């Protein structure tokens, strides 16, 4: 469940990040302002508040809309909250990555008669990954750990299950420590894979 929530949030969060970076680099002032407010507000508020707001707020809204009590599903609220948070940080990373690609490359491709879409797919995107990967990798590790916060609104992911077991067996240390080790396994494996992916993305470049 922990992995599922994190993986889905990663996909949505990355999409949001792309949109956000696009908005921040847009020529339209309104788009830039909206994206700026989004990243500033979300990055300045604890993840837990965002999760609580979306979970309890979602319940109130849905109840008002439906006319009877509806409880928001913890999974949906959790994925939504984590995607919104991930998207805000990813926006900054993608923006930085786009800016890191020399302008001349895009201009050269345009001058050679390539269409805007072709420039994006064949010139910008492949390089974007190289610049964005370290940042996105760190965000993934943060996301894995933040997914534990959803246990607060009752979704039965790793930590919630641990809490239930710890209470039932009266061996809290044993079980919380086991949970910590599982998270540690996820993060260590992730960073190993990321390290490999970063090297692969940078192939062809002189390594330091």
């Amino acid at each position: 469940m922990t992995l599922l929530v994190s993986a889905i949030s990663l996909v949505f969060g990355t999409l949001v990040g792309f949109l956000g970076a696009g908005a921040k680099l847009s020529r339209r002032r309104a788009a830039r302002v909206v994206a700026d407010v989004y990243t500033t507000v979300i990055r300045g508020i604890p993840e837990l508040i965002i999760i609580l707001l979306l979970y309890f707020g979602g319940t109130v809204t849905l109840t008002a809309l439906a006319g009877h009590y509806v409880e928001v599903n913890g999974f949906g609220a959790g994925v939504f909250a984590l995607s919104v948070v991930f998207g805000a940080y990813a926006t900054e990373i993608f923006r930085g990555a786009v800016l890191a690609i020399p302008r001349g490359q895009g201009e050269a491709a345009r001058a050679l008669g390539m269409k805007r879409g072709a420039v994006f797919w064949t010139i910008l995107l492949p390089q974007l990954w190289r610049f964005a990967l370290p940042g996105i990798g760190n965000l993934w590790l943060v996301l894995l750990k933040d997914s534990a916060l959803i246990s607060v609104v009752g979704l039965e992911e790793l930590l919630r299950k641990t809490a239930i077991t710890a209470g039932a067996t009266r061996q809290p240390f044993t079980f919380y420590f086991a949970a910590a080790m599982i998270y540690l396994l996820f993060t260590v494996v992730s960073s190993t894979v990321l390290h490999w992916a970063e090297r692969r993305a940078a192939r062809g470049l002189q390594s330091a």
Partner: protein
Amino acid sequence: MLNFELMWESVPDLLGGLAVTLELTVLSLIFGMVLALPLAALRTARSPILWMPAYGYITFFRGTPLLVQIFLIYYGTGQFEWIRTTPLWPILREAYWCAILAFSLNTAAYTAEILRGAIQAVPRGEIEAGLALGMSRWHVFRLISLPRAFRLALPAYGNEIILVIKSSSLASTITLLDITGVARTLVAHTYAPYEVFLVAGALYLVVVLAATRLLAILERWLRIDTVATPTPKDLAQPSAG
């Protein structure tokens, strides 16, 4: 739509929570820094007996969720009879000290890595220059490496401060009444999640933006590479900023 009266009424209660949030943050940062200094020194040591335990500590605290660490300390330590008999028990029994302990241990791991990176980033030439001038290793460390590393570490440490402010909200999960804890209590009473959580969120935003601002000022104030030689005109009137 939003009940503004209720939002306004929740402000005094939430400000009470703000005091707890700031207290948790400041104490954790201080204890965390005290722990991080020896940890960073061990981490950079050449002997494996020294760096391996530091590395293990840092990996554990950076690789597991803070919430798990809080639960491990708050609920976990009660499992062992012998801990209850030690003089530590009055501390480990209190949610307040458990939260501070968890935050401090956690931020120490991140801070140690920041310090290590900064110390290693001090240009070798500057250290060699100091040695060439006949300064002792300790003098070089105190007068060159440390001030340089402090400046290099500041941007990253600033981010860490912001993270500690935000993660202090997890204290609400072990009954503490910080901003988030107060907000959750208010929501349970009023069942107005939007109003209360929005005000709580705004409060955090103000604190975070204020901290960011202060850090930016501090960073500018500490910069030496852009400081020009003062002209007589500058000396005559104190410059702004």
